């Protein structure tokens, strides 16, 4: 069984730099003020490498990948 992951963001650390939306526009878009809106649900497998890149490249390390199991509630 392959592991599924979802992106989580620390909302206080995030300060709207927007690299995440540039790297993974399929799952992240910016609101009117430049802060990320993350699509709910686990990340499709083919996008996982980009999701890992997003986590590494965030200048303030606000993003993380969390393993999804049936008990996890998704958030944006």
């Amino acid at each position: 069984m392959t592991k599924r992951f979802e992106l989580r963001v620390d909302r206080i650390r995030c300060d709207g730099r927007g690299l995440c939306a540039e790297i993974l526009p399929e799952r992240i878009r910016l609101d009117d003020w430049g802060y990320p809106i993350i699509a709910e649900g686990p990340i499709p497998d083919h996008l996982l490498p980009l999701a890992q890149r997003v986590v590494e490249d965030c200048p303030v390390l606000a993003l993380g990948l969390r393993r999804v199991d049936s008990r996890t509630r998704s958030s944006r």
Partner: protein
Amino acid sequence: MNEARLLAGRDLAMGAEGIAEHVRRLGRMPAAGKSLIDLLARSGLTGRGGAAYPVGLKWRSVAAESHGSAVIVVNGAEGEPHSKKDRLLMTTRPHLILDGAFLAAAALRARQVILYIGEEHYAARQSMSRALAERTAEERRLVRIVAAPARYVAGNSSAAVHLINAGIATPTTTPPSSHERGVDGAPTLVQNVETLAHVAIIARTGQPTGTVLVTMAGGVNRPGVLEVKTGITVGEAVELAGGAPEAAQAVLVGGYFGQWIEAGQGWVLPVDPEALRAHGLTLGCGVIGVLPASRCAVCEVTGIMRYLANESSAQCGPCFFGLRALADACTRIAQRGTDPNDLLRLQRWASEVRGRGGCHHPDGAVMFLQSALKTFAGEFSHHPAHMRRSA
């Protein structure tokens, strides 16, 4: 009404009940142990600070982490502007609260009890200090009083812990949460004063009081705190508060993080945390506001949105900018009249902001607004240009 009410005993106007009277009326504080936690879980008591989290569960999670190091934070900050119940309890029944706190300290093996009281709530602070002086030396040794800044967000649990630890009352998102590592890195229980007062009764009688404290506000003849039987209707609570001098158009249940209901439906709602949850509503901090028909709903909502936007701790973009934009759009509608673009923006921003803050401040504000847009749909879509704000 039976003696197990929180506000039973001497007339509230006579001030704080001293320890002698308290013990005479209710008996000595019982010993506490793990059995108290089970008792609380069975009683179904939920928190009375706003989130209505089951008390037994909360205590269990702290107990699991505590090895004699736990900290109890008695949350009397009462940041909600219209709420007065916590201050009333602190100024009239301080020993109920202290009993609850010391029972928690014993059950959770805590070495510290912190009374977190609003910095401007002088009477409450004085009353709690005096009551503390009447307790045993052993109990007094555990306690210190910390002043909560007079801002809305200061009552938030993680903000309280943050203030105690680092001197700034802003909410935090850094894991782990306070029940694992809170004050000084110890497992911490943050509990509202009314909840602790209920604990003091349940520990003695084995039964919940069957009552809740509410603050009646707005268009009622006698605004203020009432202790009502759980399950009476909002309409009955209004009658207990002297009735409404004029017909009401809507009720706000749960204060600024609550929901608006059109008066007809609102009047028959049960004042009961669990029953309200089944309706998708919340009793929250217990504020029930009645909006008279003569008031302008849009202007009232706008004033509250402006307040909530200003109370954002500005740590998260979606909350700070989003609530500000929502409040500005409401202000434009209030002052210049309805513009369909503003209505669309309100809907869009509300759904985008929700869930994207570090704490629940934006969620509370957005749900408040969304309930207003639904309840006052007509008023919002046809508002003329004026700005009438009540005091």
